[in-house]
């Protein structure tokens, strides 16, 4: 039935296009779609909410409140992805005693679709990180660490494609330079590659080969620290690449009130959003999409 409906739709609309090739298509509302992205970053093993006596975030955060919020938004719009920008690990005794097992199990239960490698994911070394990944039913994505011949090989994906309500969403991950942040013995064998070059390669593939409608980068580079000195951060990544629509940031624990909008190399808008740390906030991004009428019209005219 689905296939027949597809053919129905194409024939009727293209015939219509043939008959009236110069008609303004603006007036005809084709399918418009809404995709919701929910996201966290730098949760740092914060599973329990802050105590009611906390002077800054009384009762803030906590896995149960987050689960409820995610479920509510998913009910509002089932076409939702849940993403995280790394540093899942380290920050409470849950990590010191259980090595990340419980964090990944809970994120799986909450329906996370993907995360990336933050520097603290390496705090117990590559071997233990690789072992802990069996508790996650979602992929951890990274494109700019060389993981060949390390225990992470075949456990970390470059990118993942999600098809949500017919919309193709490409998600990839970019990590920070580990030197100076992580003991070198804990990440031996991994080299850091230039985020800009790698992002250009990955987005080129996602956009032009795999025809993604939305491209999202899960970045653990940090928002803007070092921007003035040309040290890699989300602001630079956004400006110096071409096809990223959204950067979900992390590492700098930046509590953004509003997202930051940056023009990329093509002059197109890139959105950077980050929600601080410890699961205190949840980011919610709604993408509204419409069928690309221009390409449809030109194909009709050609006939």
């Amino acid at each position, binding site marked *: 039935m689905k296939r027949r409906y597809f*053919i*129905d739709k*194409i*024939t*009727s609309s*293209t015939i219509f296009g043939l008959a009236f090739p110069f008609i303004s298509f603006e007036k005809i509302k084709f399918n418009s779609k809404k995709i919701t992205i929910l996201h966290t970053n730098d949760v*740092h093993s914060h*599973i329990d909410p802050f105590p009611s006596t*906390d*002077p*800054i975030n009384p009762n*803030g*955060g*906590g*896995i*149960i*409140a987050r*689960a*409820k*919020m995610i479920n509510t938004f998913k009910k509002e719009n089932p076409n939702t992805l849940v993403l995280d920008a790394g540093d899942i690990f380290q*920050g*409470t*005794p*849950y*990590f*010191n005693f*259980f090595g990340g097992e*419980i964090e990944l199990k*809970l994120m799986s239960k909450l329906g996370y679709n993907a995360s990336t490698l933050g520097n603290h994911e390496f705090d117990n070394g590559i071997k233990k990180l690789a072992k802990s990944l069996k508790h996650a039913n979602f992929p951890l994505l990274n494109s700019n660490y060389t993981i060949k011949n390390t225990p992470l090989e075949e456990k970390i994906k470059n990118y993942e494609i999600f098809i949500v309500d*017919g*919309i*193709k969403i490409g998600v990839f991950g970019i990590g920070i330079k580990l030197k*100076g*942040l992580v*003991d070198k013995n804990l990440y031996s064998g991994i080299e850091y590659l230039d985020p800009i070059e790698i992002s250009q390669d990955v987005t080129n593939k996602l956009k032009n080969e795999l*025809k993604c*409608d*939305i491209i999202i980068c899960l970045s653990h580079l940090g928002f803007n620290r070092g921007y003035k000195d040309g040290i890699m951060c989300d602001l630079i990544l956004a400006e110096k690449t071409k096809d990223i629509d*959204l950067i979900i940031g992390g590492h700098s624990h930046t*509590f*953004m009130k*509003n*997202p930051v909008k940056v023009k990329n190399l093509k002059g197109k808008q890139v*959105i950077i959003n980050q929600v601080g740390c410890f*699961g205190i*906030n*949840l*980011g*919610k*991004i*709604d993408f*509204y999409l*419409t069928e*690309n009428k221009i*390409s*449809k019209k*030109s*194909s009709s005219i*050609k*006939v």
Partner: protein
Amino acid sequence: MKPILYFNNKKYKNIVIVIIILFLSCNNYNYQINNIKVENIIVLDSIVKNEELDNLVQPYKNKIKDLQKIIGYSKKSLSIRDGILESSLGNLLADILIEESKPVFNKMYSKNIDFCLLNFGGVRGNLNKGQITQHHLFTIMPFNNTSTVVKLTGKKVLELIKYINKAKLAHPTSGIQIEFIGEKIDKVIVENKKFNVDDTYYVLTSNFLQEGGDKMDFFKNPLELYPLKTNIRDVLINYITKKDTIIGKKDNRIIRF
């Protein structure tokens, strides 16, 4: 169902197939983003229950419940972010570490620690007023860093001071007083004596920073290296357990005029 007729009609059949092929080949991007709405929402709901998640967390929680035992009291809420180049919590942590490490180092090597430098990024949480548990110390210092003493030349200590000047963060220190006037280093006192670039100094820090963590490269390749190998968090826990009530405050030990 009307359009199906076109498809069944031989006259249109070929043209429809051509159109479909053209459509599929030309239509590179089916959808384009028209509008994006962003909202960052506070996660807050203290009364909500979730049995499934509770059941998952509980066994882990039970295993670490001993950490909830009260080990002491804090007179005030202390934070690493309540100052510019120093902080109430940073001062307390560095003071405790140097106080506890001095006798140990002296006994082991008959030498005296001059001052202590830790890093801002290593302090991950606040210490709230009232009861202190081991759990709190884990959230304040989650890393399993150990204490280390290095013997540095005065030149390397000058690099350290320049690092603090440039970083503009409240890195925890103890035993050293620095006054900056604008960007200029005006006065440095170590152990109640004026800093001398020709002297050597014993500096207490963590193994992470000694190995070049947080780009503190002046700690790399010291004149002498003494890894004390005690977990810094354990030192803090033992001290608080012993003292019961602790007071931390800012005292302008690192200041810019």
